Structure formats: C-alpha cells, structure tokens
C-alpha cells in the first residue's frame, strides 16, 4: 500500500469529479467528495481483481455504488483507472451521455450494478455475493451505502440476508458523512449507534477515519482476511460531507446537490490541484 499514491489518487478523483460537475454547473457534490478516499483505496490500492480492458471479466471483484448519486466520483475513478477515456467525464449528464448522474450498469464500462433508488444496491450486492458463493469463484463484492440511505428499510432486509447467507465475501462501507438532503441525519432520523446496529445484525464491523487511506486499506485487508468467518463485513467510514473543497465542506447541510458557478469551479480545482 503506497499511502502517498492513494492520497494523490483520492485528490485526482476529487479534482475530476469537481471538474465534471463544475462543467455541468450542478450535481451531488457532498456525497461524491466524501467517498473519494475509499474509491482510491479500492481501485488503486491493489484490492480489486479487475481489468479495465475487460470490464465484464468472469470472476472479477465487483463494486456496487448503492448510494447511486455518487456516480460522478465513481466515474472519475473508473476513468483514472482506464476503463474509459478521461474526456468522457466532461459529458456528465449531457444528452446521450454514458455517464448519467446515477450509476447505470448498461451504460458505463466498469459499473457493475445500476443504483439510484436508495436501499436497493445493497440488496443487489447481497445477490451478487450469493451468486459468487454459488459459483465458488472467490470474488469479493464491495458496496457503499450512505448514512441517509440507511434509513431505508431495505438496507436492513439486505443486512439480515447477508448474515443469514454467511456472505463473508461481501464488504459494505457506510459513508457516515452525517448529512442528508434535508439536514443532519441525527436530527432527521438518527442511526444512533451504527456499529452496534450492524454488529447485532451479524457483521464484522470496523470503524475508521474515512479520509485516512492507510486506515481504510487496513480495514479492507482485515475484511478480506475474515473470509471463512461466515460473516459479512461492515466498514464504517467516518467522513466529512464535501471533504476536500472548502466552500463545499462549509455547507454540509446543503451540499447534497448544489450549484457550482464558474468561479466556484475554478476555486475548487485550485484547491485540489
């Protein structure tokens, strides 16, 4: 694990996410910036068995962005990884684009599951992980859910099934950025203690600083070592919504989907350069 490189890649993910959303002028910035570090770790930390030249490779590790609105951060990651040309990022949400705001497996190379209606992606990831178990191909299935998303009942249906099916090949991340569209998660519908919740649902739970690439990478290593434990993994990422861009970080309660002026785009890219 090359910590400096992962930090650099995380910065590049943020840069290209802000560049793409800035070109459009509006987007789900807060929740994209909060997951840049985990995406860097997964895609550039040597954890995933994937091939950008063969995105549908049999037996590959898979990733489900259950909080589908963070598509732009995933697209920046996939472009940097070589799944498609970097200039595609400038087509974000333009007519006929292959990069829609919410992840679409039928449009974007490297996207393993469609998501956008919250709570469904983690269930799909459970199905994928079960599929891998049936085929015995030893793949690892990764999934990111949001903390606001965890208010969906389906997240808990999926979590019960993950434990019941003994999916120790499933690694779920909770992006605990503490804000949702309407404000603070704790004020709207608190998750109270997510560690205790997922432990009681039968997961191996770790909680790390979601912006510390070394800590995230170590947690992923631990999760992979837990294969054979018969328990799925939950890695709770303590994150800041809008991390890395000062004017976005300053407004966590309203940065879920925000406008970006040309001046703001320039400022963001300067901060991330």
């Amino acid at each position: 694990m090359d910590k400096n490189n992962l930090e650099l890649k995380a910065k590049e993910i943020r840069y290209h996410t802000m560049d793409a959303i800035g070109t459009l002028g509006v987007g789900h910035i807060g929740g994209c910036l909060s997951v840049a570090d985990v995406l860097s770790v997964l895609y550039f930390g040597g954890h995933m068995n994937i091939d950008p030249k063969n995105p549908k490779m049999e037996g590959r590790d898979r990733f489900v962005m259950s909080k589908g609105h963070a598509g732009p951060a995933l697209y920046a990651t996939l472009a940097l990884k070589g799944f498609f040309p970097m200039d595609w990022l400038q087509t974000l949400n333009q007519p006929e684009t292959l990069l829609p705001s919410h992840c679409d497996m039928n449009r974007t190379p490297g996207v393993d599951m469609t998501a956008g209606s919250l709570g469904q992606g983690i269930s799909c990831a459970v199905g994928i992980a079960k599929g891998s178990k049936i085929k015995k191909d030893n793949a690892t299935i990764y999934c990111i859910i949001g903390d606001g998303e965890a208010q969906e009942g389906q997240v808990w249906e999926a979590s019960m099934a993950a434990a019941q099916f003994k999916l120790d090949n499933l690694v779920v991340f909770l992006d605990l950025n503490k804000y949702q569209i309407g404000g603070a998660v704790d004020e709207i519908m608190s998750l109270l203690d997510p560690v205790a919740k997922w432990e009681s649902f039968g997961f191996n739970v770790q909680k790390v600083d979601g912006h510390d690439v070394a800590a995230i990478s170590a947690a992923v290593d631990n999760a992979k070592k837990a294969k054979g434990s018969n328990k799925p993994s939950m890695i709770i990422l303590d994150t800041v919504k809008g991390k890395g861009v000062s004017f976005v970080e300053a407004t966590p309660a309203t940065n879920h989907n925000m406008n970006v002026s040309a001046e703001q785009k320039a400022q963001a890219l300067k901060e991330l350069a």
Partner: protein
Amino acid sequence: MKEMRAIFASRLAEWMRKDERIAVVDADLARANGTMGLREEFPERALDVGVAEQNMASVAAGLASYGFIPFISSFTPFASRRICDQLAISVCYAKQNVKIVGSDPGISAEYNGGTHMSVEDIGVLRSLPNLMIFEPVDAIQLEQGVDAVIAHDGPVYIRMFRKALENLYPDDYKLDLFKADCLKPGLDVAIFASGIMVREALKAADLLAAEGINAEVINVHTIKPLDEETILASAKKCGCVVAAENHNIIGGLGSAVAELLSGTYPVPVKRVGIQDHFGEVAKMPYLMEKYKMTAGDIVAAAKAAIQAK
C-alpha cells in the same frame, strides 16, 4: 388433477437439474407457492429471504447480474405493488433477467380476502418498460410458459393461478408467448379474455350461440406485449369487443385493448372485470356473481357491445 403450483415447481425442478443458471428466491411463501421442495435438491439455488419481498426482488437482480436466471415468487399483490420500485429499478431499468411469479391473482385469493386480492397488479406492472406479463390458463400453458419465459431473455411476470384447474388446451398445444390464441372463431363480437375469465368467455360464447350470436373468443395469455395483430384483426372482423379479466377494469387487459383500438380501429369496447373496488373474503363462485364476472355478465356485455356498433 394437479395443482398449478405443483406443476410450476416440478417444471422448475426439471430446469434446475439441467441448467445451473436457474435459481429461486422466495419470501416465506415457498410452502404456498409449491417451491419449498426445491430446497432439498438445490440447497444453494433455492433461497428464502424471509418476509422481505423488496429484498427478494433486488437480491434476484444481483443474482441475474451474475449470470443466473432467478425466479422470485409471492402472492400477486406482494409480487407487484409491494415491490414495484424494486421491479422498476433493480430489475426492469437495470435490464436484469428476473422472472416474477405472482400467485393467487384477483378473486382467486378467496379466503385471504381484500389484502391479498390483487385487483391492480397488471395495472401497476403494465406501465413498467421491459417487462412482459403472462397469465397461463391451465397446466399445459403453465408448463410451456415456464420453458418459454426461460428462453425469453428479460424480465417476465407470471400471473399464476395456484390451485388445480381442468386443462383447457390439448396435449399437442404449442404456446407462442407473443401470440394470442383464438379458441373459437366468430363474426359478431370479439371476446378477449385472460386467466380464469377465458373459461367464462367460452361458456358465454355457447350461450350467445344459442341466441344466434357468433362470438369469437381469444385467450390473451400475454397481456404485455399485447398481440396487436391478432386483436386488431379480430376487432376489425367482428366490429365490437368485450374484454374479460380477473382484475380491475382499470389498468388491465380491458385497458390495454381499449388503448390499442382507440388509436387504430375504434369500435365499442365493453369491459368485464372487477369494477374498481377492492376484494373481500369469499369463494370464487360467490365473488364472480357479486362482481359481475360470470359467463352471463359476458353475454350481457357482448350484447351491449353489438348494440353499440
């Protein structure tokens, strides 16, 4: 005479033996839908997510993305309105090859009553792009239907009567999922029927014949995509139409037929079915009388349609 659910499960078992892609995901209704027995033989591929239909649908989509062909099953209301969004996004929008089995359609839910009596499932699902809707009328059509929906690459909703039914089709019948079946040719009025109403339509045709009215009866087993060619030709030949279904007259077969004809060949369309109300506990014969879904009601509708020509 075997129950439809037993026919379904044994056909599925045959497929699971020869095709490792076939899987089943239940939501605690395996006993009701006949799929419980599959677990012994296929412990890895016959799953149960518990009472969590939404999870059932999305888990199946995940399995489908991994190359499986999962069948999910529940009672019709929970296989449609309860999981509408999961079917829309995880399955249809994501183009995942999931087969959805809804059992006990409409008034066939009998003693389970209003909560379980789907008057709306076709209406809910018919507006989802990429989804096929198939309602077999007997064991022969169901068996061939299982084969056909597996051969069809894409999501299909099978609206399955659960209990035993006399066979309507001969053994040498050949199902074409995309082609409605003309069961009795006629000239005076076209009766398009689905599910349990096909038998009523045939009875109605006999009653009409006794009065000198020559009715055509067509089993529209696939409600989406609608066999527009057959329906249009029949409507043109007869000049008026009755649609009969075990579903709300809003949103189901009658609506589909009216939508087609209004834009192509407008002729009088009378709809027989549940008249926009919920169901209630009772046996089917009682409900068919009460809800005006008998052969006699189809006869009355046919006469009204002819009069409106």
